[in-house]
């Protein structure tokens, strides 16, 4: 894949309903697994496969993403040639609005694609936690003599924004459709990660744009399933697609499982993230921590069970955190309890407060609130 493939990442919230968690950010910069942002995974996978020319198309609320990525140095993407390029939305001449959907988004970076020296493009959303070997994707693409390789996974987590895929015995996609009520149990679902020759992508985009089409899946891929060889690459690695608060919570908790951690952090490549120079975490006299992920910079003098603590969280004496996700710079004061809660960055839970949600409906505390 090295030097032959460029990456284009979509950092929009389309298809995501993360409500309170995305008031201040996009899904791509949603904190995940104690020290990461969601975009770190796909970005690190690309870097791991030698993709070093990566464009990120943003849409809204991208301040936190820009702050996270800076010049790309933490992913080894501060390069003279290639590296990271962030494309904030701009108004298209024809539409008098920022882009609507992937087709217009790709139209805005047409120049970037034309100028790039790479022949292939890897397209991906950024709300997916995955540690994948993209070289395998390229191999499959070439073996199957495919026009487009589509990455899919088998899941029970089916929702309206991801197509259910049917493919023949050669792995060629023959049908894709929105889920229907009869879809129960595991289905093969589109991950919306594509590998495609650059020239083909540009011609498809030009044609679709000229017709005023908006939807990459419905308006480009689906009508062309007969004309183009769309190769179904079924991902067997651990996949977490984060698009609802419930899936954010359940996938976060899965990371407590050692098997999931091995898959997500050590399987194919190193997951890189912004370096913050936090001090190591300090456990004080009354610390009782069990089955939890703890980032650096925390000071713990209370009880933490089945939870995820991001960087620099202070847990005071007598505080009890169970089944919760506590983001950066929280202070949980004396004798407070959290159960099935997600507290966003910079939240302060004052002494003797008791917050509780339920595993299918965790309580979310918005960034910066004091309770």
């Amino acid at each position, binding site marked *: 894949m090295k030097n032959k493939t460029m990456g284009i990442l979509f950092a929009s919230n389309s298809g995501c309903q993360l409500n309170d968690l995305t008031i201040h950010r996009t899904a791509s910069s949603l904190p995940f*697994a*104690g*020290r990461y942002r969601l975009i770190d995974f796909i970005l690190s996978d690309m870097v791991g496969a030698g993709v070093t020319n990566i464009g990120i198309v943003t849409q809204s609320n991208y301040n936190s993403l820009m702050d996270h990525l800076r010049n790309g*140095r933490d992913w080894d993407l501060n390069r003279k040639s290639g590296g990271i390029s962030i494309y904030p939305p701009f108004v298209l001449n024809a539409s008098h609005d920022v882009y609507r959907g992937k087709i217009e988004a790709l139209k805005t970076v047409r120049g970037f694609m034309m100028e790039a020296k790479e022949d292939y493009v890897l397209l991906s959303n950024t709300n997916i936690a995955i540690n994948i070997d993209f070289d395998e994707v390229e191999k499959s693409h070439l073996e199957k003599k495919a026009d487009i390789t589509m990455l899919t996974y088998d899941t029970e987590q089916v929702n309206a924004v991801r197509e259910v895929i049917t493919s023949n015995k050669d792995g060629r996609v023959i049908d894709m459709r929105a889920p229907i009520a009869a879809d129960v149990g595991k289905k093969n679902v589109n991950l919306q990660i594509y590998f495609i020759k650059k020239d083909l992508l540009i011609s498809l985009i030009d044609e679709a744009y000229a017709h005023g089409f908006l939807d990459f899946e419905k308006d480009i891929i689906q009508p062309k399933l007969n004309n183009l060889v769309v190769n179904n690459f079924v991902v067997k690695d651990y996949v977490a697609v984060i698009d609802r608060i419930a899936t954010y919570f359940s996938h976060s908790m899965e990371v*407590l499982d*050692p098997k999931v*951690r091995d898959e*997500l*952090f050590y399987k194919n490549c*190193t*997951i*890189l*993230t912004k*370096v913050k*120079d936090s*001090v*190591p*975490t*300090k*456990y*004080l*006299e*009354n*610390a*009782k*921590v*069990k*089955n*939890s*992920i*703890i*980032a*650096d910079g925390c*000071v713990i003098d209370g009880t*933490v069970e089945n939870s995820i*603590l991001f960087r620099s969280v202070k847990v005071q004496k007598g505080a009890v955190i169970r089944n919760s996700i506590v983001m950066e710079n929280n202070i949980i004061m004396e004798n407070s309890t959290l159960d099935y809660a997600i507290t966003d960055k910079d939240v302060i839970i004052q002494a003797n407060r008791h917050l509780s949600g339920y595993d299918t409906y965790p309580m979310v505390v918005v960034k910066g609130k004091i309770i």
Partner: protein
Amino acid sequence: MSNNKKECIAMLLAGGQGTRLGVLTTDVAKPAVPFGAKYRIIDFTLSNCVNSGIDTVGVLTQYRPFELHQYIGNGQPWDLDRLNGGVYVLPPFMRAKSGEWYKGTANAICQNIDFIDNYDPEYVVILSGDHIYKMDYAKMVEAHKAHNAQCTIAVRKVPMTEAHRFGIMNMKPDGTIYEFEEKPKQPKSNNASMGIYVFTWKTLRKYLIDDEADPNSENDFGKNIIPNMLKDGNMMYGYDFEGYWKDVGTISSLWEANMDILHETEGLNLEDESWKIYARNQAEPPQFVGESGKIVDSLVSEGTIIEGTCRNSIISHSCKIGKGANVEGSIIMPGAVIEDGADVRYSIVGWNAVIKKGAKVGETLPPSNPGEWQIAVVGPAVTIKENGVVAKGEMIG
């Protein structure tokens, strides 16, 4: 070549072997030895430089420099990757007609006169890469300027009973140094030199060249340069430093300094946002504490998995502490593995060492007198076999 001028640059002496650290410095120089769960010893001095606004640092290396060179790299983790200045690793080098190792601290600087001249500095700060402390060198340089001094030496008060172990600066009430005594039998004062100097470069340059020409000189700052400058009546001042400072040259002082992080009253506070200590980052996932993990009064870093018990310990990044394992009063360096049921007490376990199941390392019971810790040391990448025993105070490597 012009316009590189810097008012002040730092030269960091990092070439010493650190023989008293035994197996820990067999393959790496002392400044590269891990410290405090995620740092190396040299991180403190490098971070002090950056935090003091000194953006040009020459690091003089000689003994086993590879690990240190790799660690420093282009200086980016310390924000020392600069267009003009930044961090430079300066090993000894060959010249047209000769070439030699650094013979002493002064000789090391003398061999790099060209490097320093390139920045045409007014002042040069000379530092050691093996001390743990947080200090604003800018304030010391200000004091140096205010006194119009040729040399300013940082001093700290040590207990009078221990003064005979240090280089002692005898000072007048206004801070002027009138006498220097190296490890005096009958100390006249308790102002110990910390090995941190600010020199007016023009003056130091002359003394370095003169010293080099003296065949009887040991080419050492403490033994030669400072006494010679005093003898000639240069303006030399002591600069009182009262914060935390520790020379981590011995196993027991290295162990103590690590333990001092756990006890804030000792004054080594790493959490101060205004004076961050930077380190090269490991890109590891956060630490994980398992169902059977129990951690109290300890410092733990990224990538570590803890299933056992840790008390009063420093657990560095990428370590594994197995089920039923017990770690007490110990320093576990990066990548070390303490297997199920192993018992490690009052010990230093080197990086990538493995303590197999059921092995016992160090004191079995705390000594009756807490001042008499006899720290056991397991060297880097050493494996202690299943049910093996390492006695207190023993060093394996």
